[in-house]
């Protein structure tokens, strides 16, 4: 977690800014890198599904049945990404849905609802959109558990106040 910062120009100002990573925060650089990798993988898989080439396998799809009920979690529950090096977070409970982002291994995810083995974020994940993470990847070539419940008293702090019903999306 970084410092919050705010600034105001007292005079007309020209400022040069540079971001960087060192030994203390290099994990942040890894996050950016893996996000790029995830986007590349997602793009490749999407192309393989939409324009399959002879001899190439079409990536399997895991998605929720439309008849599957959605169950809200009150209060929200904290899960941790268990898969290495990351878990996809998508716009809808389907591996064919657009990607919203990733969860790095051991990164917590506050789930506000569950539907057919998919966890929906308790708060908007990106650009006002809620994110979905697949809990178990067995149907995707034996990936195993992708998300696990966080243990410990109370888990991590929750984003939504107790009793709030997660909006349906």
């Amino acid at each position, binding site marked *: *977690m970084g*410092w*919050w910062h705010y600034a105001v120009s007292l*005079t007309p100002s020209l400022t040069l800014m540079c971001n960087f990573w060192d030994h203390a925060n290099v994990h942040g650089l*890894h996050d950016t890198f893996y996000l790029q990798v995830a986007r590349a993988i997602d793009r490749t898989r999407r192309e393989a599904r939409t324009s399959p080439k002879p001899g190439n396998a079409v990536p399997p799809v895991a998605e929720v049945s439309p008849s599957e009920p959605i169950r809200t979690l009150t209060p929200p529950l904290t899960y941790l990404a268990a898969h290495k090096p990351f878990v996809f977070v998508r716009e809808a409970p389907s591996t064919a849905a657009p990607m919203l982002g990733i969860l790095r291994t051991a990164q917590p995810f506050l789930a506000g609802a569950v539907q057919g083995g998919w966890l929906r974020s308790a708060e908007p994940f990106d650009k006002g959109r809620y994110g979905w993470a697949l809990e178990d990847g067995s149907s995707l070539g034996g990936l195993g558990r992708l998300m696990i419940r966080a243990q410990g008293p109370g888990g991590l702090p929750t*984003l939504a106040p107790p009793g709030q019903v997660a909006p349906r999306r």
Partner: protein
Amino acid sequence: MFSGRGPLTIKLGSKQVVHGMEVGLCALTLGSLARIHVPPDFAYGELGSGPIPPSAHLVFEVEMLGINDRQTSTRNSWLLRRLLMLPPPADLPERAARLPGTPPVNMPLRYHASSPSEMQLPPLLVYQPERARAAAAAAAAEDERRFAASDPEAIADALPTDSPLSQLSNLEPLAQLPPWLRRLRSPQPLPTPESRSYFAFARLHRALLPLPSRDAAAFTSHTLDSPLDSATPNGAAGAGAAAAPSTAAGEDLGPKLISGASPILHAPYGTAWDSRTPMVLTGERAETGWPAAAWGWSFWEREYGDQYVTCKQRAPLFDSDQTGDTLIVETSLREAMQYARTAHLSGAAEAGKAPVLYMNGWDVFEALPQLWHPDIDKLPNTTHPRTVAEYERLHAAFNLDSVGAIVAKARGLCKLFAGPIGAITRIHQDNHDAHAWLCNVRGRKLYVLCRPEDSPAACKCSPRRSLSSPQVRALPARGLARSMQVLTTAPALLPTGTCFAGPRTRSKSRRRGHSTGGVARSTAADWTHSTRATSSARATAAWSSLRQCSSLGRPFWLPWAGGTTLSRSRPRSR
């Protein structure tokens, strides 16, 4: 562009239109609205043609809808036309006739606005025709000369004729004035060394004038007249009020500006940095020749003025801002620089009716890779970045082509900001836990830093999101106030940033009679300025306290509408 029958496509050089219009079109950028005046020598000459009478001046009103394969949005074109349809000056032909050569182009800025109130805004900037550009460059050079003058006689000669400072019988105090104050033009009285307001101002900008103790006490009382006082222990305010402000070099005025604020570490260039704590680098860089030190206003205007940039009413922008309630101006770098330097002199700015637009986060080295230098992003002996090495390792591990990619990534981490007085960087954290250093190449900023551990619980959760307004309001006022770290970044004091380092060269800083800028570095966690950001009433209050500490009901030097802008902003993430 439009003709009477609709959009008209023109291939430049094909002589589809008169030469003067082609010249005018070449001066426009995508989305520009312009009124191009073409003298007869560049149109149909003394003979005329068809309905065009002899020696006719032509006026074209054009909107650049597309260039090559790039099209512009027409969402707000009605507003643009409204701005453009202002009647041309009655003496336009006469004035144009006095400008041989390239025809003049008056180009109101292109606006993206949806708020009715913003429709009323006058064009902020006027595009300069070629010859006017040369005049502007000469004026900028003169401005720089005047700005840098340290001799009282030279300063007096350079003062605006309407400056009340020109009436002073004793010129010595002029040399003590902050350079930028000398150049202010205002219909309102400028402060004098005898005035209380000048005193507060001078103290704010540190050690510019020796002041008697009675004035120091007065300044202190203003300093502590802060909205945050109620949120801080009484002891802090009392102790501050009893002490006269020190003018020792390197002092952080932050604690004096905001009760309860902690001082920030100051250290000379080359000091090793503890990445857990913000630091301001003071003094002068040991090494010379850091290229960016010379990148002042005139440099950008003269060398790269035609670069396309955007200026925003809110910066950084968050998702919730992209709903049409934020003013975004597309313009040239030249115009953005001129605006940043002079916006506060406009009547609208003085009245607080003009938006404060900020050219923030311009990817300068992507646009101008030739400016990149391997030393640009270095702070020798202070930081030990692993950015490039780690990128190289990851690219090798994933068998990725890294030729050119690594350097491009490193370049992309450096951004240029140009803002007028009052331009605000909304409170936020940097993305991906990135560190940052900020260097005020020109000008001064106030920075407010809040400790990460004082973040509300919501922002410690994952996925990390931006704060909502209620979450910000729920921040414990006392805790946040205590955690504030304030920097006033006069070049002589504290340059900017979270890990601030000063960019100025030794020779320039001496010539200007003040010390170097500094570099500030902090562990700010935000890279793209897009996530986990929010507006903050606390930051607004902090700024308000600064305004009060200067005893300035006078808008001429604090004409910013920044507080208003900040309070209007809404939280969001991207």
